[in-house]
C-alpha cells in the first residue's frame, strides 16, 4: 500500500493539525447545520410529545431514530420496539413520515436562508451551505455558526449543531461532533474514524462495503483512504470509488445551491385601464411574447396557462387554460385575447388594470414534438380553435366530447371529457374496444369472444327481407299452422313471463340475445346445461319474432346457463319453470316451438334446425376472421341493446306507472309486474296511455355486494309514439331514457 500523494498525516483528531493541503484538488469549505434525530424531533413536534420525554420513531418494528433522552436510557437504533420499550417504559413510539419531516424542516431552512444564501437541503434535518460567505460576513466561522444556531433556535425552537470542514462529508461528520475542522486538516480529521461512518447516509446503503472493509482489516477511514484509488476502483466498484474519495477528504461533488424557484410568470400593468377587447388583445400580444421568451430561455413549453386579470374594481379574475398541445406564442395570444374578450364582454367587472400570465405546468420543450404526419388537420385545427373559444365563454369543463366506456345503463356508458383533455377511456380501452356498439347478432360459436365492431357477422343476409320472410314462412309451415309472429299468450303479463319470453330473456339484458356478453356467459358455462330445453322454449318466441331479421334467435337458450350463475338466474329459471300462464302443452305454445319432446334436440349441443342452414353459413367467417390473439372486449352482461334511448335525462324524474284502475303498478318480484300498466305520468315529461310495453327485465349489478340494490327495466310505448325506458329502483319507477 503506497501512500497517496502528499504525506499520510498523523492520525490525530486535532482540529489544528495537518495544515498542508491534500492536493491541488481541494474541496470548498462547507458549513453543515445538523439537527440531531430530526425524524424524532419532527414526529414529536407533530404529535405534541414534550421534548423531555423519551421518544423513538419506529419503522417495521425497529427503532429508526430516537431522542437523546431515550438514548440515555439505552434505546438504540435498530432495537426491536418491544425491547426499546422494555429498556425505557415511558418511550413514546412514533411513526415515520418523510413528508412531514420535510415540511417541518422548511422553517429551519428559511431561518438559515435569512442569514446565509445558497442553502442546500441535504435531507430533512441537515442543510449545507458554503462557509465562505457567512464566515466572511460574521467575522469568522465560529461567529457565523453561533449566529446560525441562535437564529434557528430563536425562529423555530429547533436545536442544531454546526460543523465546518472541507467538503460536505467531513462537514457533516464535524457537525455531528460540533467541531470546526481547519482548512486542509480534513484528511487528518477523518483518518481515525471508523469506516462505518461511510454508511451514515440513509439513502445510500454501504453496509456491504463497510463490512467487507472491516473484514479486510481496513477499520479506519485513514486505512481505507491510503489505498490506491485505482486499486479500489478495480476491486470494489464505482460506489467504493466514491466512498474512497470521501475517506480521503475529497468532495464527490460541489454543493448545489438551492435557488429560489424561478419566476416564470409575466405581468403587465395596463395604464390607462383597458376596457376594450382590441386594446386588451394588443397588450396580450406583447405579454404572450415575453412569456414565451422566458420559457424558451429555460427550454420549457407551457401546457397549462393561467390567465389572471385584476380589474379596476379590485376584482381578481383567473382562469387556467389546459392544452393538449404545447402553447405556441400565437396560441397564447389567442387564449389571452379570448379570455379577455369573455371577461370584458360579460361586463360587470370593469376595466382591466393588470394582466398576468403564469405557466401553471411546463414540460421540457423537446417533449412536445408533434407527429410528422400531423394528426391535426386544417379542419381539426379550425374546430379546435372554435371549441377553445367556446371554452373561453363557458369554462374549460363547459365544452367536451364524449367517450364510450363500459357499463350497463345508457347513462353510465358515456363519459364526458373536457375539450383538450386526453380522451383515454377509464379502463384503458379505446372507443372501439368499449364493447360492440351494435350488438352483433351472434352466431352459435361458443368461443367466448363477444362480437365486436370488427366482427364481420353483422352484415348478414338476414337483412334481406325475402330471405327472412322465407325463413319465417318456412318455420310457420314446419311448426304449425297457427304459428304467427305475435300470437304470444298475452295472459302471461301478470306472471312476468313476458320478460323472459322475448329476445330479452337473458336475466339481465333485455333482448340480450344479440349481445356479445351473453354469448360470453354461455361460453363460460359450456352451455350444455340440462333444462335449457325449457329455456329454449321460453326464449323461442323471441326467436320467432326475431329470427326473421336477426340471427341471434337461438341465443337466449344459450345464455340461460350464464344467468343461473350471475344471481338473477335462479329466479328467472324458477319462474320459467313455474310459468303457469303459459301452458307448455297447449296447442298454441307447442305450435310456436317444437314441443318438449323435440326440445332436447334443440339443446345447445347443436343449433336449432331452423337456423342450422344459416347458422353454418355464419359461423365460418367468424372463426376464420377473428384473430386468435385479440382479447375480447370487456363484457357487460345486462347491457341494454341497440337502439339506445336518444334522450337520457340527467336527473331521472320519478314516473307514475298506473293500471286501469289508476293504482300504481309496482313490482311483485324483481321481474314480475304487479299489474298491467295502462298509463304513464311524468311530472314535466311525456305522459299518456300505454300502447305497448316490454319487460320487466331485472338488472343485477354488483350482486356480490351484500345489500346492493338491483333494478328492473321496462320499455313502454305511449299512444303518441313516444317510447320510454323506465327503471324501477328504490321502490319506484324512474324515467331513465326517452326513445326520442
Amino acid at each position, binding site marked *: 500500500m503506497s501512500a497517496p500523494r502528499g504525506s499520510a498525516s498523523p492520525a490525530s483528531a486535532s482540529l489544528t493539525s495537518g495544515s498542508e493541503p491534500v492536493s491541488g484538488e481541494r474541496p470548498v469549505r462547507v458549513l453543515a447545520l445538523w439537527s440531531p434525530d430530526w425524524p424524532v424531533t419532527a414526529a414529536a413536534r407533530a404529535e405534541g410529545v414534550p421534548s423531555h420525554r423519551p421518544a423513538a420513531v419506529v419503522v417495521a418494528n425497529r427503532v429508526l431514530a430516537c431522542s437523546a433522552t431515550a438514548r440515555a436510557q439505552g434505546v438504540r437504533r435498530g432495537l426491536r420496539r418491544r425491547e426499546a420499550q422494555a429498556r425505557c417504559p415511558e418511550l413514546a413510539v412514533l411513526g415515520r413520515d418523510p413528508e412531514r419531516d420535510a415540511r417541518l424542516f422548511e422553517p429551519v431552512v428559511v431561518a438559515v436562508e435569512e442569514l446565509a444564501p445558497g442553502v442546500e437541503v441535504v435531507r430533512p434535518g441537515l442543510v449545507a451551505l458554503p462557509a465562505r460567505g457567512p464566515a466572511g460576513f460574521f467575522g469568522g466561522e465560529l461567529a457565523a455558526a453561533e449566529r446560525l444556531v441562535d437564529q434557528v433556535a430563536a425562529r423555530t425552537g429547533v436545536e442544531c449543531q454546526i460543523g465546518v470542514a472541507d467538503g460536505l462529508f467531513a462537514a457533516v461528520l464535524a457537525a455531528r461532533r460540533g467541531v470546526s475542522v481547519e482548512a486542509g486538516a480534513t484528511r487528518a480529521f477523518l483518518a481515525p474514524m471508523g469506516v462505518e461512518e461511510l454508511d451514515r447516509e440513509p439513502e445510500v446503503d454501504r453496509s456491504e462495503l463497510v463490512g467487507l472493509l472491516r473484514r479486510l482489516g481496513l477499520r479506519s477511514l485513514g486505512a481505507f483512504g491510503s489505498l490506491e484509488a485505482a486499486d479500489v476502483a478495480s476491486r470494489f466498484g464505482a460506489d467504493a470509488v466514491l466512498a474512497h474519495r470521501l475517506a480521503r477528504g475529497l468532495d464527490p461533488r460541489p454543493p448545489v445551491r438551492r435557488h429560489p424557484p424561478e419566476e416564470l410568470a409575466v405581468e403587465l400593468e395596463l395604464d390607462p385601464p383597458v376596457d376594450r377587447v382590441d386594446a386588451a388583445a394588443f397588450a396580450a400580444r406583447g405579454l404572450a411574447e415575453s412569456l414565451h421568451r422566458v420559457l424558451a430561455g429555460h427550454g420549457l413549453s407551457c401546457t397549462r396557462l393561467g390567465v389572471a386579470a385584476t380589474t379596476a374594481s379590485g376584482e381578481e379574475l383567473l382562469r387556467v387554460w389546459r392544452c393538449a398541445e404545447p402553447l405556441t406564442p400565437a396560441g397564447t395570444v389567442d387564449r389571452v385575447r379570448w379570455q379577455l374578450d369573455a371577461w370584458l364582454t360579460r361586463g360587470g367587472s370593469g376595466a382591466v388594470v393588470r394582466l398576468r400570465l403564469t405557466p401553471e405546468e411546463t414540460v421540457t420543450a423537446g417533449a412536445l414534438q408533434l407527429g410528422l404526419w400531423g394528426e391535426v388537420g386544417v379542419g381539426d385545427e379550425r374546430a379546435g380553435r372554435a371549441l377553445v373559444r367556446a371554452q373561453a365563454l363557458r369554462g374549460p369543463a363547459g365544452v367536451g*366530447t364524449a367517450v*364510450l366506456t363500459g357499463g350497463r345503463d345508457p347513462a353510465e356508458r358515456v363519459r364526458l371529457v373536457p375539450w383538450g383533455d386526453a380522451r383515454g377511456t377509464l379502463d384503458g380501452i379505446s372507443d372501439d374496444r368499449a364493447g360492440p*356498439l351494435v350488438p352483433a347478432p351472434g352466431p352459435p360459436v361458443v368461443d367466448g369472444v363477444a362480437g365486436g365492431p370488427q366482427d364481420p357477422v353483422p352484415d348478414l343476409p338476414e337483412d334481406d327481407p325475402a330471405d327472412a320472410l322465407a325463413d319465417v314462412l318456412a318455420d310457420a309451415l314446419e311448426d304449425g299452422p297457427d304459428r304467427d309472429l305475435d300470437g*304470444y299468450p298475452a295472459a302471461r303479463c301478470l306472471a312476468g313471463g313476458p320478460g323472459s319470453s322475448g329476445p330479452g330473456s337473458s336475466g339481465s339484458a333485455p333482448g340480450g340475445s344479440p349481445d356479445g356478453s351473453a354469448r360470453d356467459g354461455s361460453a363460460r358455462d359450456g352451455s350444455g346445461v340440462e333444462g335449457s330445453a325449457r329455456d329454449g322454449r321460453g326464449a323461442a318466441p323471441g326467436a320467432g319474432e326475431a329470427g326473421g331479421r336477426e340471427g341471434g334467435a337461438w341465443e337466449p337458450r344459450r345464455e340461460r346457463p350464464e344467468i343461473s350463475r350471475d344471481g338473477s338466474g335462479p329466479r328467472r329459471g324458477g319462474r320459467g319453470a313455474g310459468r303457469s300462464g303459459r301452458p307448455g302443452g297447449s296447442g298454441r305454445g307447442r305450435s310456436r316451438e317444437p314441443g318438449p319432446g323435440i326440445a332436447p334436440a334443440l339443446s345447445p349441443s347443436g343449433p336449432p334446425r331452423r337456423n342450422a342452414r344459416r347458422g353454418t353459413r355464419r359461423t365460418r367467417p367468424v372463426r376464420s376472421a377473428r384473430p386468435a390473439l385479440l382479447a375480447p372486449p370487456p363484457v357487460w352482461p345486462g347491457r341494454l341493446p341497440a*337502439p*339506445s334511448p336518444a334522450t337520457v335525462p340527467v336527473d331521472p324524474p320519478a314516473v307514475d306507472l298506473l293500471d286501469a284502475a289508476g293504482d300504481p303498478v309496482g313490482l311483485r318480484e324483481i321481474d314480475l309486474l304487479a299489474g298491467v300498466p295502462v298509463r304513464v305520468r311524468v311530472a314535466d315529461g311525456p305522459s299518456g296511455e300505454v300502447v305497448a310495453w316490454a319487460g320487466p327485465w331485472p338488472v343485477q349489478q354488483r350482486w356480490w355486494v351484500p345489500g346492493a340494490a338491483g333494478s328492473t327495466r321496462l320499455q313502454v310505448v305511449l299512444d303518441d309514439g313516444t317510447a320510454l325506458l323506465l327503471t324501477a329502483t328504490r321502490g319506484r319507477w324512474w324515467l331513465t331514457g326517452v326513445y326520442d
Partner: protein
Amino acid sequence: MVAPGAVPAGVDAASRLEVARGLLRRMERPARSEGARASPTPGDDGRVLPVAAPLARVLPAGGLRRGSTVAVGAGPGSTSLLFALLSAASASGAWAGVVGRPDLGLLAAAEAGVRLDRLALVPRPGRDLVAVVAALVDGLDLVAVAGHERAGVRAADRQRLAARVRQRGAVLVALGAWPGADLELSCTRAAWQGLVGAGAGRLRARHVQVRVRGRGIAPDGRTAGMQLPGGSGAVEPPADDAVSVPLQAAARAAV
C-alpha cells in the same frame, strides 16, 4: 324537384292558397339570388354535407347544403332525426357540435353513426347560448342548438347566426322552432316495432314518416318513410311491409 303544379286535384282551398304562395316564392327567388350573388357567400357554393341515404332522398340537395339553417321540429323522433342528420357527415370527417342538450343520449348517437370524437358538446351554454353557437359555427361544420326558445333568442340573434352560418359555410340545426329556417324537418306517425305485446319483445326499430318542408321543396313538403332508428340504432330504409305491418297490428291487438 317536384313540379309546383303537381298538386292532386280536389285539395281544399287552403292548400291551393299555399301552392299559389309557393309559386310566387319560386318566382321571386331568382331575383333575390341575383342580389345575393353580388356579394359572394363562400358557404353557398353548392357544397353539401352528406346525410344518410334514406334522408338524402327527401332533402332538396341530397344532403345538407352548407350555409343553410335546418329546423328539426320537436316531438317524438326529433333527437333521433338529429343524429341521423349528423351521422353521415360526421363519419366523413366533419365536425359537429351540440349546444344546450345536457340529456343527449350519446350512446344512441354513437349507434346512429356519429363519431363521438368529432362531436363537441356544450351541454349548458346558459346565457351565452348565442355567443357559444357563434363561436362553434366558426369552426365546426354542423352545429345543433337546442333550448334557444327557452333562452329567449331574439329574431335579431337568429338572423345574425344565420348570416354567420352562411358566411362560414356551416350548417345550423335547430331543435325546435326556428323561424326563417331554410328547411324544416319533422317526424310524424312514429310506430315502434318489436313489442310483441303484453311484455314480450323489446323495442327494435321505429318506423317514421319524415316530413321536409322549406326552400327548394314543393310547399306541401316531401315525406318519406324510414326506420329511425333501425335495428342497429342507425337510420335505415323502411322495412318490408310484409313483416312490419302484422307486428304493429298485433301489438295493438294484444293491448
